[in-house]
Every structure is written in structure tokens, then in C-alpha cells.
């Protein structure tokens, strides 16, 4: 059964600029440096799209910094935790928003824990949650940075995040996880 958490919506696909990359980690390893290179690619590509084109150098730096950070977080997570044959990364314009989405398969047994984590991330104020998580990590470094990337996206970059879990038809052990971040595009 498909389940959505947070701000997950299908692309309305109004014909705006859109790019999808598909990686095949089973056949061609995605190296660490390629995650940031992927993020930079999307940022530079969309900085040149007329509907997004920043007005000046400062705006351009901000746009590229924001898109790079958000896409890098999504891609790194997807590549790290993917168990299937492909990882898809899509960035596109959807009305007034720039949408970045990744899709990768995960083990069905991890869905419950992930769902709980994601529910917590969208339950309260992202900035307060971020501070609380940072403090918790400082007290217990072994705990890991669970959710910090998402909270930073929401708190510092204003991203709206959503997730969707969809069973994989021919493999009951796997689930397709789609993660989406929406950013408001400032009019040029």
C-alpha cells in the first residue's frame, strides 16, 4: 500500500524544464565525488533556465548554494541506502517551485523505522527540531546525525520535504522510496 509523509505531491508537469538522471549502481559504482558533482550539475543547469535565472551575482550564488545543498543531501542518501538496480534523480520546474526528487529501492523491513523518523521530522518546527537534534548529537556523538540533513533543508533553505513508499510489484522484500524537496523559485 502506498503511503505518503510530509509534503509529497506528483509533478504537475506543466512542460517546464526538467532533468532526470538515472544511475545504475549495480553496474557502475557511484563514487563519493559524483554526488556533489551531480548536485552542482543540477544547480548550474537550472541557474541557466530563464524561469529561474538569478538577477545578479549574489542571487546566483544563493541559488546555486541552495540547490546544490538540497540535491546533494537527497542524492547522497539515495546512493548510500539504495539496494536496487537504479537510482533516479529528477529536478524540474513545477509552477513556482523547483522540485528535486530521488527514487530508490529500500528493504521493506526498514519502512516502519523510516516512517517514524520522517513523521517526527515533519511534526514540529524544523528550526527547533534542528537545534534539539544538534544538542542531542553533541551529548551523544555515537547517536549519528539522523535527519539532520532534512532538518537543515527545511530550516535553513525553506524546503518542503515529503516521502512516498510504494511496494515493488515483483519483489515483496523491497519498497520504492521517493523523497521530494520543493523550493520556492524567486522570480528573476
Amino acid at each position: 500500500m502506498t503511503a505518503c509523509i510530509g509534503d509529497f505531491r506528483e509533478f504537475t508537469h506543466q512542460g517546464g524544464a526538467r532533468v532526470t538522471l538515472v544511475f545504475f549502481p549495480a553496474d557502475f559504482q557511484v563514487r563519493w565525488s559524483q554526488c556533489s558533482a551531480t548536485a552542482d550539475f543540477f544547480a548550474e543547469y537550472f541557474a541557466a533556465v530563464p524561469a529561474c535565472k538569478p538577477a545578479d551575482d549574489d542571487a546566483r550564488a544563493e541559488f546555486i548554494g541552495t540547490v546544490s545543498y538540497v540535491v546533494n543531501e537527497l542524492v547522497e542518501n539515495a546512493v548510500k541506502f539504495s539496494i536496487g538496480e537504479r537510482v533516479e534523480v529528477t529536478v524540474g520546474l513545477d509552477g513556482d517551485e523547483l522540485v528535486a526528487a530521488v527514487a530508490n529501492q529500500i528493504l521493506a523491513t526498514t519502512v516502519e523505522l523510516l516512517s517514524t523518523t520522517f513523521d517526527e521530522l515533519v511534526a514540529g518546527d524544523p528550526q527547533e527540531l534542528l537545534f534539539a537534534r544538534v544538542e542531542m548529537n553533541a551529548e551523544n556523538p555515537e547517536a549519528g546525525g539522523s535527519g539532520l540533513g532534512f532538518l537543515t533543508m527545511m530550516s535553513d533553505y525553506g524546503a518542503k520535504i515529503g516521502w512516498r513508499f510504494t511496494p515493488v510489484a515483483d519483489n515483496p522484500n523491497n519498497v520504492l522510496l521517493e523523497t521530494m524537496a520543493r523550493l520556492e523559485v524567486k522570480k528573476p
Partner: protein
Amino acid sequence: MASPLPFTVRYHENNQEVQLEGSLRTADVAAFAPVRACLDDAAAAARGLLFVNLKRLRYCNHAAFVQLARFVADCQTTRPELRIKFIVSSAVPWAPLRFGFLTELYPNAIVEQYDKAFYPGQGVIENDHLIPVLRTQTNIVWAHERELLRRHGLRPGLKIADICCGIGDFAVLLHKEFAPEVVVAVDHSRPFLQYAIQVAREFGIQGVEYHYGDAANLFLPDGAFDFVTSRLSLQVFDQPEQILRELMRICKPGGRVYLTNEMMGHNYAYPRHESVSWTYQQTLKMLASLGMDLTIGPKMYSLLTDMGFEDIRIEQIGITNANTQVEDFARVIESWEEYITGELSSATRQPDEIVERLHAGFKDHVYAIRSRRGFAIWPIFVASGRRPLRAAASRPAGQTLPPSPAESCDTVLDAPP
């Protein structure tokens, strides 16, 4: 607001050289116009030979290439006495092909692949006869160097560049010992790189990238590396400051550049020290005739200072028969003997009696190493410096980084926004 354009074009009047750098992928004639304007100005001012330096032009689309050809064709008509020399590098694979083609059609065009012989000693250095020499050297030096590297700032998790990496064994050792984030190893010798790649495959090494490239014109980004090494290499170039400038460029501000070089005149062995001393003095002369300076070791302090580095540290590794496996040390000297009496003597056309005397000197050196009452020392100088956080951080007011020849330009035309 347009995104910044990815190429620069400059004319250096003193050298009669137009320098094109970056990516030149023009959509149309209008986009090429700043380049054409610079070329036209240069052609009007130059006499005899106009150089067009493309060593740092990584990309050029066909449309821009056609515009360059149009310039050459027009010069044939307007300046028939002017010859245009395109300087290309084999590190940019499309360049020799395209400009070689151009010279077939336009008699006023010449192409020079500058890295075919871009330093005088290249022929004797970049061949596979040197591989055994390099292998044995690394084996005995590493034992001393691994601790010393820590004193010069190396620690785990860094991005490291090893320039003039030779057969790549140092890069592999670094990778194993210091767990860097990445090692990028660059050399201009295809036999060395092939060997390096083979070794890395056999050892299952990941995390080391091997690049074929030119140490004086690296296709590596500014400030990309925390730690930049170049070992026993500046000594083989006739313009070591050019290499050092590049090492500084790719080093992150606050990062360190680490060098090792020899002082061959201080190679010493007792007994039979006179024979041994003569051997190394003779070798130094032979190397000097090819533009190499194996006395550069102690001079590194000056080189680093002049280039603007801070926190310069310099010390010496003394490889002796007391602190090193005797047979390993002897093998190094024997490999030197083979190389110096063979390849190097042949390249410098030494008469037979000199070669015989060299053989005798190396054998005397090995004798001293193996003798229970003998002593031998091979000094290697080690130096490092920190790239300043700001350009003129540690120099007197008004003093800036020493300019490269390319920077002493009279006209700079950056593509307008």
C-alpha cells in the same frame, strides 16, 4: 544576468603570444568576437611569428575551431609574411589532431606539441628504464619519510595531489598509511603511469586517481588540495619555479606543499671516497648538461620563500648503511649505476673511459655500503611550506606573488559579460 563566460584570452606583447584558456565553445561569430579581436590586434603588432598558446584550453567546439581557422586564412591574405604557431599539449587529446589538420591546409600555420620535449632531460627521464631505479628508491626512503610527513602536516582524511608521481608507488603508500580522502597522482610519462596503474590494480587500490598531465600546466582546479607533494622531481626540470607555481596554485590556502630533492654532491662513501666523489661530480655535470640540477635540495628554502610560502620547514633524511637495510641500499646504487652508465651516458655521449670510471665509482660505493667498516650516506632534503591564507599575507607591503611569464602581459581581454 548571464552566467560567467568560461574562457579568457590575453595577448602578451613581449612574447608575441596570445594565450587562450578555459573552455571556448562559442555559439556563433558574435560569441567568438572578443577572441578574434585579440587575435587581430596581436597579428597587427607581431613580427615574424605569432604564438597562440593553447596549453590551458581544455575545450574548444568545432565552431570556435572554424573561427580560429578563419583567422589563419585571413592572415594568409592580410599578413602573408606572418607565421602563426599553435602551441598544444598532448594532455588535451583533441588539440594535436585539430591543429595538425590545420597545418595541412594553411602553410602559414605551424603546430608545436610542446610536451613532446618540454624539458631538456625529458627523453632520459620519461622512459621505462628508470622504473627499477624508482622502485628501489621508494622502498628505502619510505621507512624514513613516513614519520617525517607527519611533521610536515600530513594527517588522515586529506585531499592530496602527488605531482610527478613517477611509478605511483608513493601515492599507494600514502593511501595505505594516511587514509586520505583522495589521492590524485599526475605524471607525464606514459610508461610510468602504465606501471602505476598496473600496480594499483594488482594491489586492489581504490581512491587513487592517475592522470597523464603536464606539471607546469595542470588541469587541476585552484586550491583543490590540502596537501601537495612533489618528490625528487623539481631537480629534473630546468625551470623548477614553473612547477612550484603550479603546486602552489592547486594547494588550498592554508594547505601545504611538500617537496623532496637531492644534493648529489653530498653523496659520500668511505673508504674509496675519492672515487665515489668523482663519480657523483661527473654525474652532476652530465645531468646539468640536460638541464637538471641535483644540487637543488638545500636551495628549496629559497625557492619556497621566493614563491611566497609561509612556515617553511626544511630538514634532511640521511639514508645510510647504518639505518637502512644494506642490501636495499646497495641495490639502489646498483640501479643508479645501470641507469647512469647506460641511458644517461648514452644521452650525454660519454666516452668509454668515462663510463668505465663511472662503473668503478659506483662499485666502490657499493663496496663501502657492504663493508663492515664502511660508511655511506645519501642525503635527501625535505622541505614544505604553507600557502598563505591571503595573497600577500607574509610578504612586505607591495610585494606580490612572483609573476609567471604569462602574467607579465600588456593586454588582457576577458570575455565581456
